[in-house]
């Protein structure tokens, strides 16, 4: 303190405090003119938008008050540490000690008079805190804060009661209210500097963080830990009492009191730092390493951008709608923009709630400086789509979904690269390292995730990857698309500013296509397109072929029956499957909720009333279909969530498509599906899948000269993993067996990874590093056909049995039958199995066989049972009575067979 005093150009800290108080009072008087106590928040926003002088006075009022508090405390401490001590009469010292509390109350009432989100909550807290005091609580609360929502009483206390008290105590101990000229000049310059650079805070009404003024943030932190909050008032009283007691008692007592005061102050400062810098929304602990940290901590403060305001602009602001209780500058300029969905009407939401920026300025550059041109990217979604009162819950959980974290894909890739023990580790695309697998993922796989930001305006199309919320919810109509194209061709064209694309629930298949036309190719399968290795020059038939992304050639195949029937992806897949449900899943089949049997059933369906819906499903139902009470909705068997676009009527199930609103009757399964129970452990898709794409025999090597792309960071690089592909095929899929605690069933599988990986090409220190894997993967091909596969398609098909393509023949020689198999492809030297096989003919494979631990090829015993029926089908057509009877009682059919029947086993 003494060092500070040596370099300090002023006579005392008290003089500085007095000058600050003087400025505070003068600026307060000037501020009172534009301030409207009955429309406080709005009147402050208007000041910031169209009244630069009032804004400056408000800033000066704020900064002078805050520095007055600081310098008053320093002034007191200065006297505590002076050798002369405090030589005031007890009465004056008592009033000065109480004056500390009064200064805090004057400032707190000033904080309340903003009437923004912080202030409204602070008022509720004060009301409860003071009102909860025994005996005098109610009286004290009404006297201090008034009643209802009116700020009148608070205003009176702020400008009169507390201010007068401060004036009186200043006069009592200092004898004059006038500060020295030197102090006043320096302090005005000091306060002006702050006032010009940084505005007084005003909550934007959207930021989820609720914090008190900085000097009470420590108290807020204490209250976070106190279940009996009135106890906190004792801390305040203790502080005032200690201040009062300092001059009394002997030297030793004074020392103890001052030390206690110092310790209390240090603890409080520590708590203030925690509360101010390390608490975010819902008072959750955050650190500067967290994303959007500055948004949570510094948002209420804004840099100033003073400018003279034209009358025309003033009129525009005055005529613009009031949004969330205040004006925002955006709507004064962008007042004729159209194209919004009803849910995102800017007359109700403004522009700021999605695009950020600075709503409290008419300075264009300042308003746009921190604006999100393309909101909804996951890195910033909590500031836009996930802001207060909007879609907070979804943004909070979206990263738990596989479309955002890619955990399954990453885990399987690392497993195949022998970098982890199982394919089931939970991870995220944001935690990729530098291993061979992670580089492989970065080069070839991880571009498709919701967190991949959308960086350019324009509609979502087949080239789009990710884009956060907009990946699914952005829609351009003819006008907005034309305006967008015009702007792209001529950046001076501003029509796009008046035709906004819509953000809505019309999630079409095109939104899914960009990502889902790759890897499992669900989108293309669904529409009936199979990717080939042809080049664009080789095809000319636009009916049979389709060019995707300008170079990928797809051949026309049979489309999924649901697609043909007019259903889109979202007619089956709900918001929890697509945006995560808060639970981490290892693989897509675990996250997927919908099952065929939810809609196609013979027994009593699982139904739900509207009042049993979860919040999100209820809202979406309301938005899509209006008020729809009184219906029986189907619910998923897996997680008991409603299928909001279904209903059950007269024991029949119907579906109403979400976008086109067509009503579809949903057929129950055919009788053959459940006949006799012979196929009871077959999944629906194992029979009803028309075809599935597959590729076999690919080789992966790293080429350090290959021009590549880092999909995680979106930049071009030199050196990349290269995939030398084998052959793309499309046929009815192989079948495998999934066996875990919840499920035992035959499922479709495809050769997911029959490949070699040259790890040494990436890391020369790896010796004998050529990896070979023969893994099949469970598939959800999305090529459903009404009629199931024929019996022979499974029982007499080497592909279905996992042997790969070739000739599977049942030969009868001399009254004895024998199955033989000649593969189409040569045996792979690594394991002596045909290139496309999953298992050898009548051989058994286990262990490292699939990209899932719970999926395997058929055992020898199972193969024999399948082939036994296959042998029957060699002579007996599947429509014959004997084959139909075999579904009901196979043993009886076997026992009653004639001497001409020759069996293989």
């Amino acid at each position: 303190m003494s060092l500070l005093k040596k370099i300090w150009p002023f006579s005392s800290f008290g003089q500085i405090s007095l000058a600050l108080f003087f400025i505070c009072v003068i600026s307060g008087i000037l501020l009172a003119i534009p301030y409207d106590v009955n429309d406080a928040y709005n009147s402050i926003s208007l000041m910031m938008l169209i009244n630069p002088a009032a804004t400056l006075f408000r800033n000066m009022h704020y900064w002078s008050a805050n520095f007055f508090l600081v310098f008053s405390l320093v002034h007191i401490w200065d006297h505590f540490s002076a050798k002369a001590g405090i030589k005031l009469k007890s009465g004056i010292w008592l009033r000065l000690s109480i004056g500390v509390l009064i200064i805090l109350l004057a400032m707190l009432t000033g904080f309340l008079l903003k009437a923004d989100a912080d202030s409204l909550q602070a008022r509720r807290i004060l009301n409860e805190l003071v009102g909860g005091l025994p005996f005098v609580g109610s009286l004290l609360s009404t006297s201090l804060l008034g009643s209802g929502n009116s700020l009148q009483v608070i205003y009176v206390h702020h400008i009169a009661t507390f201010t007068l008290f401060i004036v009186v105590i200043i006069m009592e101990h200092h004898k004059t209210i006038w500060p020295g000229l030197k102090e006043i000049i320096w302090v005005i310059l000091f306060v002006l500097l702050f006032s010009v650079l940084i505005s007084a805070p005003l909550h934007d009404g959207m930021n989820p963080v609720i914090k008190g003024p900085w000097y009470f943030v420590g108290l807020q932190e204490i209250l976070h830990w106190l279940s009996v909050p009135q106890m906190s008032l004792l801390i305040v009283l203790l502080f005032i009492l200690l201040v009062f007691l300092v001059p009394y008692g002997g030297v030793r007592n004074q020392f103890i009191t001052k030390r206690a005061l110092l310790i209390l102050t240090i603890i409080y400062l520590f708590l203030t730092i925690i509360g101010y810098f390390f608490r975010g929304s819902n008072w959750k602990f955050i650190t500067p390493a967290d994303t959007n940290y500055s948004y949570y901590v510094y948002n209420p403060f804004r840099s100033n951008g003073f400018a003279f305001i034209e009358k025309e602009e003033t009129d525009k602001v005055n005529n613009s709608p009031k949004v969330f209780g205040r004006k925002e500058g955006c709507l004064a300029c962008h007042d004729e923009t159209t194209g919004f969905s009803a849910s995102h009407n800017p007359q109700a939401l403004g522009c700021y709630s999605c695009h950020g920026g600075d709503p409290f300025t008419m300075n264009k550059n300042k308003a746009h400086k921190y604006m999100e041109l393309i909101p909804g990217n996951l890195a910033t979604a909590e500031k836009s789509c996930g802001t207060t009162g909007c879609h907070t819950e979804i943004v909070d959980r979206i990263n738990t979904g596989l479309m955002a974290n890619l955990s399954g894909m990453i885990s399987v890739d690392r497993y195949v690269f022998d970098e982890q023990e199982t394919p089931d580790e939970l991870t995220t695309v944001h935690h990729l390292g530098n291993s061979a697998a992670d580089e492989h993922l970065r080069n070839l796989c991880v571009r498709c995730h919701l967190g991949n930001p959308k960086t350019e305006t324009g509609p979502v199309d087949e080239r789009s990857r990710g884009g956060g919320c907009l990946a699914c919810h952005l829609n351009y109509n003819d006008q907005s698309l034309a305006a967008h194209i015009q702007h792209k061709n001529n950046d001076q064209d501003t029509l796009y500013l008046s035709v906004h694309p819509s953000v809505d629930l019309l999630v079409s298949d095109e939104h899914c296509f960009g990502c889902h036309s790759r890897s499992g190719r669900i989108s293309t399968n669904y529409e009936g397109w199979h990717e080939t290795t042809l080049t664009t020059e080789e095809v000319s038939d636009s009916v049979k072929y389709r060019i995707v992304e300008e170079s990928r050639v797809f051949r026309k195949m049979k489309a999924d029956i649901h697609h043909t029937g007019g259903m889109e992806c979202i007619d089956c897949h709900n918001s929890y499957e697509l945006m995560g449900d808060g639970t981490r899943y290892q693989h897509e089949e675990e996250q997927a909720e919908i099952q065929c049997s939810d809609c196609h059933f013979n027994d009593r369906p699982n139904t739900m009333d509207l009042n049993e819906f979860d919040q999100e499903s209820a809202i979406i139902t309301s938005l899509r279909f209006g008020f729809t009470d009184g219906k029986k909705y189907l619910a998923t068997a897996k997680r008991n969530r409603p299928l909001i676009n279904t209903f059950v009527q007269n024991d029949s199930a119907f579906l109403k498509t979400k976008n086109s609103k067509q009503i579809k009757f949903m057929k129950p399964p055919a009788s053959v599906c459940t006949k006799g129970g012979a196929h009871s452990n077959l999944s629906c898709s194992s029979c009803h899948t028309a075809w599935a794409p597959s590729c076999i025999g690919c080789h992966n090597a790293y080429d350090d000269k290959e021009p590549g792309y880092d999909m995680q960071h979106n930049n071009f690089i030199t050196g990349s993993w290269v995939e030398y592909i084998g052959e793309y095929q499309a046929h009815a899929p192989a079948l495998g067996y999934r066996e875990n605690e919840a499920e035992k069933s035959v499922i479709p599988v495809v050769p997911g990874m029959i490949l070699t990986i040259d790890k040494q090409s990436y890391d020369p220190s790896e010796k004998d590093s050529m990896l070979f894997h023969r893994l099949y993967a469970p598939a959800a091909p999305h090529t459903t056909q009404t009629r199931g596969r024929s019996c022979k398609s499974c029982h007499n098909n080497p592909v279905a049995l996992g042997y790969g393509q070739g000739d599977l023949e049942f030969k009868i020689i001399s009254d004895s039958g024998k199955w033989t198999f000649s593969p189409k492809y040569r045996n792979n030297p690594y394991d002596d199995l045909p290139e496309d096989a999953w298992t050898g003919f009548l051989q058994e494979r286990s262990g490292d066989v699939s990209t899932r631990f719970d999926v395997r090829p058929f055992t020898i015993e199972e193969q024999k049972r399948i082939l036994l029926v296959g042998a029957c089908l060699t002579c007996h057509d599947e429509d014959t009575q004997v084959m139909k009877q075999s579904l009901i009682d196979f043993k009886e059919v076997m026992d009653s067979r004639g001497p001409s029947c020759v069996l293989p086993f």
Partner: protein
Amino acid sequence: MIHTQRKSKKKEVVRVSLNGNRKVLFHEDCIIINKDEPVVLSSHCTHLGCRIQTFENGQLICPCHGSAFDLEGNPLKGPAITQLKKLDFTLNKQTQTITIKI
């Protein structure tokens, strides 16, 4: 500028449309849990009266000090330790409006 003080208008009764199918409806002084037998809770956190207006992961969360409550108003996470106050209301099923006494 100082305006003459308006007569304080204490909200005695609030009439709210159940707004279609929304499950949790936030209003200034109350939270309506819209289900077969609706529940109306005070939006004032029992810890210090902050307005609760967030529904996250099936919980009602207080923004000021982080208390969490279930949809019956029971405290799940402190500092609040007492249940949110249940408010009296009448439900008009025909007009789908709920009248709450605050």
